[in-house]
């Protein structure tokens, strides 16, 4: 196994034992970025201090000041997180924006844990989209890495760095993870602080990591999770040992499958891969329990109303100042559109959200996790705005996030883990969701599934 493929716990053991230099690891990542990123365009900024950070990590570890399994590990930060030593642009070239040079809560926690902040990865402008131009998908450079955390998805999948941070308002961590073939976790709303992340939609935004393995995600979550009074939604709850949840079998667990909504219209290869994954979980000893949540038919209306209204409120001064004409056309339209969502529409969206939360709570009374496809499709071609799903043309916007947004509306933890490839060789994601603050069970099931399959060992050709 080459260095760029090595899981974080293994890298950490080698670094701690003095068998791997953080400087050598950072140089390895920088060399890959310089060689591959001109094609992938995953990074918008590469840190000019990362080697200094690495040298300090090496010195500290050698002196016995090991900070934990992220000490000396390069991590990329999505360009909507503030960072003290790198500029933040949120993917916009519009004039009139400047963001502070200070660490967001997540960047600060990673830095305090000894991680090397290696650069800023591209986001769809203002994290409001599912394409992330000009970033490309490492499995096929003609295709998108999805978004809005497409830069982190592309960078991690291609082995430019072991981990990247993303943010997820309707699927923006899990969708890039799904189409790039990585792991991506949207934690429970309130588990990871949003402080210092440029808001997109206050009650839907979730920070979280993208990594190549579930164990890597557990390592990052151990550092990222925890109370922060600067985020009014952040909850003061104990943080469990996420790594301890790994390695346990799924035998005896109750795995839910919501048969409406998530299985109504999928690409045939996606459907086959996910059905196989469910069968595999059953064969491993999990009990499969099927159910339906009919009110999911109102979910798209709810997330549209909340996300559009929130985004327009956030960008209101830019609308008044005429700055939105400098936004990319798709983002400009969405920001202008939010004015047409009325206050009663918004509140009815928040009411249906209450009912959906109750529906999922009812489902979780008899299951431990809910599994299904992360997306109904695999990576689509750059410039395509419609895709064919089951012989029906559908807009990419409505198809792509159909299975991810329910967990933004309900705030539940949800992970995407690779579960196969389509006939074109493009990755497919399995989504596993859990009860509020039960990331441990989500990680346990994801890890058990990952370890019993070889998907994680496949890498995109460009990575070699």
């Amino acid at each position, binding site marked *: 196994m080459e260095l760029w493929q090595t899981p974080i716990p293994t890298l950490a053991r080698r670094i701690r034992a003095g068998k791997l230099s953080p400087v050598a690891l950072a140089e390895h990542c920088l060399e890959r970025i310089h060689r591959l990123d001109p094609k992938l365009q995953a990074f918008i900024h590469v840190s000019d201090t990362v080697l200094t950070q690495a040298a300090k990590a090496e010195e500290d570890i050698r002196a016995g000041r090991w900070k934990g399994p992220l000490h000396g590990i390069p991590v990329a930060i999505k360009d909507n997180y503030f960072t003290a030593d790198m500029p933040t642009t949120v993917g916009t070239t519009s004039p009139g924006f400047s963001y502070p040079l200070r660490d967001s809560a997540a960047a600060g926690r990673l830095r305090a844990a000894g991680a090397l902040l290696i650069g800023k990865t591209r986001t769809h402008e203002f994290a409001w989209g599912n394409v992330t131009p000009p970033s490309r998908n490492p499995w096929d450079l003609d295709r998108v890495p999805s978004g809005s955390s497409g830069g982190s998805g592309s960078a991690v999948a291609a082995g430019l760095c072991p981990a990247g941070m993303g943010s997820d308002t309707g699927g923006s961590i899990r969708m890039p993870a799904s189409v790039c073939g990585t792991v991506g976790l949207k934690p429970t709303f309130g588990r990871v602080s949003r402080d210092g992340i440029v808001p997109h939609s206050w009650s839907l935004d979730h920070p979280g990591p993208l990594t190549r393995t579930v164990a890597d995600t557990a390592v990052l979550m151990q550092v990222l999770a925890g109370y922060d009074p600067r985020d009014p939604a952040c909850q003061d709850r104990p943080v469990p040992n996420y790594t301890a949840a790994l390695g346990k079998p799924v035998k005896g667990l109750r795995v839910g499958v919501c048969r409406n909504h998530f299985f109504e219209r999928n690409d045939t290869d996606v459907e086959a891969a996910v059905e196989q994954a469910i069968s595999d979980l059953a064969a491993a000893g999990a009990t499969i329990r099927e159910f339906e949540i009919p009110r999911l038919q109102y979910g798209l209306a709810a997330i549209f109303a909340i996300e559009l209204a929130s985004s327009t409120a956030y960008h209101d001064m830019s609308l008044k100042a005429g700055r939105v004409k400098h936004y990319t056309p798709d983002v400009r339209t969405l920001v202008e559109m939010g*004015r047409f969502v009325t206050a009663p*529409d918004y509140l009815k969206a928040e009411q249906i959200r209450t009912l959906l939360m109750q529906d999922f709570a009812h489902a979780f009374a008899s299951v431990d996790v809910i599994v299904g496809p992360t997306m109904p499709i695999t990576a689509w071609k750059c410039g395509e705005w419609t895709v064919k799903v089951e012989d029906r043309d559908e807009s990419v916007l409505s198809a792509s996030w159909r299975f991810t947004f329910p967990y933004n509306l309900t705030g539940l933890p949800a992970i995407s883990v690779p579960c196969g490839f389509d006939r074109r060789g493009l990755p497919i994601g399995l989504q596993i969701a859990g009860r509020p603050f039960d990331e441990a069970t989500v990680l346990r099931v994801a890890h058990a599934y990952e370890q019993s399959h070889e998907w994680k060992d496949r890498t995109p050709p460009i990575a070699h």
Partner: protein
Amino acid sequence: MPPATLPDPWSDVLGSDLEPRRREEVLAAFADVLAEIEKLRALDLTDVHPCIIFEPTAPYRLPEGS
């Protein structure tokens, strides 16, 4: 007494200053969203509390100086 001139439904009521041609473009893009929102409007949710909790103690949890 009604006002001499009624408020403009776009700029005054909705606060949207889009030029008429641009407004048409955005409205066209909004049509699919509106179709979804109309499903919400048809629901009787009278007895459902919205998923918004007013929390008056929040400012008291902030650290000094923030």
